């Protein structure tokens, strides 16, 4: 039989026509309304490039500059692990999932209670991520209340690198702590140039919707461009709050903000890696919270993946595996599954916030553990159906139908293929009732709790060398 390619299921929500219209609107925003650029250096750079500066620090950015930045931004790049191995090739709509940043509370894995987060939580989440196969990158998951607030992001970073070797997305407050974090990263990579060649971390900074670029944020943006630290710059263009309530408008504005950041980024260092996309969630009109479980965010990031494929080519930033529920219940499962699955089918690239509860206020180890399983399930689905002689299995059918009393279960074809032909869940329970009851009648939350604790107990991350650890301590104590 002639070779048949496997079709990769793909969710598409925008066609070329819609993509062009949204892009045109973003260009119009930049060229006619401009952005508020509070960074004098960046403002001067834009002015020199021919942009019109008005009202002190507002600047209009013409389409040519934007198109030039889109052109020079890399269309693919790789995030490495901390040992220098390629881990996340961001190309071809590859999807990678990871945790989220700064929550104020966590669900205690021992007591099940919601309590303020401490630095030990950052370490635990990192360790869990290190031990979970389908979670590709790590974020802090906690805003620790037991470390000096001034250096909170440095402490979080150290706790992370001491507990995982996976790629990371990190947060910094300003130009000061990001420089320290970069020093630590360089120590781990074996020098600044080695880090630049094989970056293992991505900075998460945010412009402010509508259309505002504070100085500290642009400081970080320029620092990352210079040092070759990949970064994303998703403004919080939540529909109805920071952005128009209609998704097209929120996207156009968020994309305009991203493009303005990209222009400065590429002017600073052409070809430096940039991850594209705003966070277009919604401001819930009853509770006034920014939702972390709504279909709108999933829809807008699927649309963004279409914009990537039709136009920009630049890998995208996305979210999934989070919930607005206060506990890990059916709502949390439904919202996590919906967002994970749609992000995968949309071929979004770097997907964060796995394991958030309570609209990003609370983190939950069990939720990360469940999300890990849901990613596996979605990945299986997104793999599509391979069609070839082996999978069409006419030989097997011939054998089985020719043997009275036989069935496929005992055929060699089943033995040889069942592992890849089927999705085998680990935590989603399919046991018979009595077996389930015999094992303690555990629900999903409980099973994830047991599994999270097991990983925290048993998983051993490959330790960093003594020298690296010493260097880190030296940098921090300076």
């Amino acid at each position, binding site marked *: 039989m002639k070779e048949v390619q496997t079709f990769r299921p793909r969710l598409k929500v925008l066609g070329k026509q819609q993509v062009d219209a949204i892009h045109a609107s973003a260009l119009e925003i930049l060229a006619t309304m401009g952005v508020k650029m509070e960074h004098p250096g960046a403002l001067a750079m834009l002015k020199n490039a021919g942009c019109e500066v008005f009202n002190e620090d507002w600047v209009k950015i013409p389409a040519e500059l934007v198109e030039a930045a889109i052109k020079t931004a890399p269309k693919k790049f790789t995030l490495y692990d901390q040992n220098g191995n390629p881990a996340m090739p961001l190309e071809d709509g590859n999807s990678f999932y990871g945790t989220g940043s700064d929550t104020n509370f966590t669900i205690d894995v021992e007591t099940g209670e919601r309590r303020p987060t401490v630095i030990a939580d950052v370490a635990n989440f990192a360790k869990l991520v290190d031990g979970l196969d389908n979670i590709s990158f790590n974020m802090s998951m906690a*805003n620790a209340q037991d470390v000096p607030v001034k250096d909170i992001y440095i402490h979080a970073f150290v706790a992370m690198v001491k507990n995982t070797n996976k790629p990371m997305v990190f947060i910094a407050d300003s130009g000061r702590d990001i420089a320290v974090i970069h020093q630590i990263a360089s120590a781990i990579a074996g020098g600044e140039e080695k880090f630049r060649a094989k970056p293992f971390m991505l900075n998460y900074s945010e412009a402010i919707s509508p259309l505002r670029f504070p100085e500290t944020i642009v400081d970080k943006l320029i620092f990352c461009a210079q040092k070759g630290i990949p970064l994303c710059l998703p403004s919080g263009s939540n529909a109805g709050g920071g952005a128009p309530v209609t998704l097209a408008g929120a996207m156009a504005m968020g994309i305009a903000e991203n493009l303005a950041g990209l222009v400065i980024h590429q002017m600073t260092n052409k070809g430096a890696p940039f991850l594209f996309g705003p966070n277009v969630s919604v401001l819930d009109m009853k509770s*006034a919270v920014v939702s972390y479980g709504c279909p709108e965010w999933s829809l807008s990031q699927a649309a963004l993946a279409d914009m990537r494929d039709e136009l920009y080519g630049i890998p995208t930033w996305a979210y999934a595996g989070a919930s607005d529920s206060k506990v890990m219940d059916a709502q949390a499962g439904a919202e996590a599954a919906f967002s994970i699955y749609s992000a995968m089918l949309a071929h979004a690239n770097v997907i964060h916030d796995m394991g958030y509860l309570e609209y990003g206020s609370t983190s939950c180890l069990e939720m990360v553990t469940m999300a890990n399983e849901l990613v596996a399930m979605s990945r299986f689905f997104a793999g599509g159906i391979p069609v070839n002689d082996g999978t069409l299995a006419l030989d097997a059918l011939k054998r089985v139908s020719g043997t009275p009393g036989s069935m496929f279960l005992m055929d060699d074809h089943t033995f040889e293929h069942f592992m890849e032909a089927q999705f085998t869940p680990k935590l989603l329970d399919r046991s018979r009732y009595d077996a389930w009851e015999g094992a303690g009648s555990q629900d999903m939350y409980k099973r994830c709790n047991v599994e999270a604790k097991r990983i925290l107990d048993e998983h051993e991350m490959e330790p960093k060398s003594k020298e690296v650890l010493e260097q880190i301590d030296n940098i921090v104590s300076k």
Partner: protein
Amino acid sequence: MSDYKALQEAVLKGDIKTALEQTQKAIDAKDVARDVLDNGLIPAMDEMGDRFAKGVAFVPQMLRAAKTMQECVKLLQPLFAEGDITSKGKVLIGTVKGDLHDIGKNLVAMMLEGAGFTIVDIGVDVSPDKFVEKVKETNPDIVGMSALLSTTMPAMPETIEALKTAGLRDNIKIMIGGAPVTEKYATQIEADSYASDAGSAVAKAKELLGIS
């Protein structure tokens, strides 16, 4: 006294045009401005607050009703008698130093305004000194501080300290809020009040000033 049903309906619908017409009608009928406010507009807003609390009205409807009411108050303004207090009190509000989140702060400000308070919004990333300066300048009853980041919460006690040093603390009530802020924290830093959302911020502000 006229029947304010049509006016109230217009406020609840956020129909500014009709509300203004109805207010004008009351003015033409020589209604006392104070009555239009107390028996017409305020009960409508109370009803809206009730609907919102019950989850049958949404934030934009609430804000639109508040705006409608404000437009009507503007029309009434020249007619208020001397001594008519049309403001429930003055609230100075800002997001603390280092913090750029303002959606929550803005919402709190709008709700307070809708409930009849006068608002002085001094923006985001407001330093303790700037709070002091603005308090001196505007003489508010309540100072509201918002912080969304753990890293910026310490700016709250710093601001309170600065207000104390400037000798202004005793003249004002302090209310704080924002996602990482708690009741306990408010007690700890000796703020007078904490509110978890915009609705309760209104209730707390009234409580602080002993009004209903």
